């Protein structure tokens, strides 16, 4: 039990550090969130549509905006460990790699939740959507957030190790997140009353994706930061 408590303490330490850095640098608030809102607005311009058309596509546009913005947050998270010898210092600290992974993924998850809340506000205001199943919306949003944060943290570490993170990260990460995009979009379609689908079934897919990404990430992170 003390091992579990120590592991969770280490993960919390890393998450708090990443969030503190984000709070001080305000990259998510100052850059990622405005970028995501800009994407929503540009979708509106591109579709040149009335609210009915936007409502039909709102779920997909929301999750595309989330994924594109998540790339920025993931890149930022990975870059923290590439600056001025911090990765070497982490390796020397003796922190368990799995705790490091969980901590970093948690910090990205928290940022994504903030992003999702702001973007949802954007959907309500700009696209005029209505939430018909708030519980489904929240559960699907959280599970998709976990999947994106875990997969993003894993692939961020992988791309950083290859030394080409800026260009390679989207190519590596977006195909992996395609099932999450599909599942989250379908679940939101149901939650927003846009399309008659079984949103909870798609939420089950999101739960599986979140679990796989988290377990694989925790197991693989040690190899990635060492080699």
């Amino acid at each position, binding site marked *: 039990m003390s091992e579990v408590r120590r592991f969770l303490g280490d993960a919390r330490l890393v998450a708090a550090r990443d969030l503190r850095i984000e709070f001080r640098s305000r990259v998510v608030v100052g850059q990622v969130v405005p970028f995501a809102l800009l994407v929503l607005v540009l979708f509106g311009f591109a579709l040149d549509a009335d609210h009915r058309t936007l409502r039909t596509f709102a779920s997909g546009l929301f999750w595309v905006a989330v994924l594109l913005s998540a790339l920025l947050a993931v890149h930022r998270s990975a870059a923290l460990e590439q600056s001025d010898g911090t990765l070497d210092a982490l390796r*020397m600290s003796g922190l368990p790699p799995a705790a490091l992974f969980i901590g970093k993924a948690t910090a990205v998850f928290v940022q994504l939740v903030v992003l999702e809340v702001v973007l949802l506000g954007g959907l309500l205001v700009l696209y005029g959507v209505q939430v018909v199943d708030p519980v489904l919306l929240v559960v699907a949003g959280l599970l998709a957030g976990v999947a994106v944060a875990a997969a993003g943290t894993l692939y961020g570490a992988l791309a950083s190790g290859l030394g080409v993170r800026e260009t390679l990260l989207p190519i590596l990460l977006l195909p992996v997140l395609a099932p999450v995009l599909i599942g989250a979009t379908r679940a939101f379609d149901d939650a927003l009353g846009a399309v008659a689908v079984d949103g909870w079934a798609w939420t089950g897919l999101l739960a599986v994706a979140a679990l796989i990404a988290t377990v694989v990430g925790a197991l693989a992170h040690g190899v990635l930061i060492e080699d």
Partner: protein
Amino acid sequence: MGDRYRGGVPVVELRGAVALLGNFPALAGVDLTVESGEVVLLRGPNGAGKTTLLRLCAGLIRPESGSVEVLGHDLVHERRSVRRRVALLGHSTGLYADLTVTQNVYFWARAAGLTVAEATQRVASALLRMGLSERLLGQPVHTLSAGQRRRASLAALVVRRPELWLLDEPHAGLDQSGRDVVDALVGDAVAAGATVLVSSHELERVAGLGPRVVTISGGVVVDDTGPADGGGPRV
């Protein structure tokens, strides 16, 4: 001073250690034994392999062949068991630019496994020891000078109270008072029973500690002359 070298417990044992940087053999078969409580000064020209040797001892590089044991552990298979007991001061600081000095040092103290109470107490003590003024402690690291960052980096290592210090050009970028702090730090570490490997071109800075001087060139040890204070050749 020379007695310290006899009959001690081996802290670092390298046997035919080869390490590659890319395809280049930065270390080409190093044999070196460092015993508990020793101060070893690594000398050699640029590119001789000093930094690689220190990183190898820290477990940050895998040996291509040969064996490397640190604190009784094989670094190929057990490096995670060793790292928390070893401090490496390299060319970079290992600090997060957007965190304050105190936040950085506290994070590394907690990451090393210290409790909140231990970390709080040791961080305050280490920052004081490094001569960082109160005004600097709450400032983000990116606003500090290179020398101030170096001191903060050292403070982050001091809090861990390592058994083995690996110092790569520790005086670089420091003013006179900073250099004095480093010298005092090494002296305190040795007095506490720690072992120190220091790479430096400034022999006179550590000469007072009577270091054993090991010269590296071309990735091999070419001279191991014993203590600089006249303890006689070791090999």
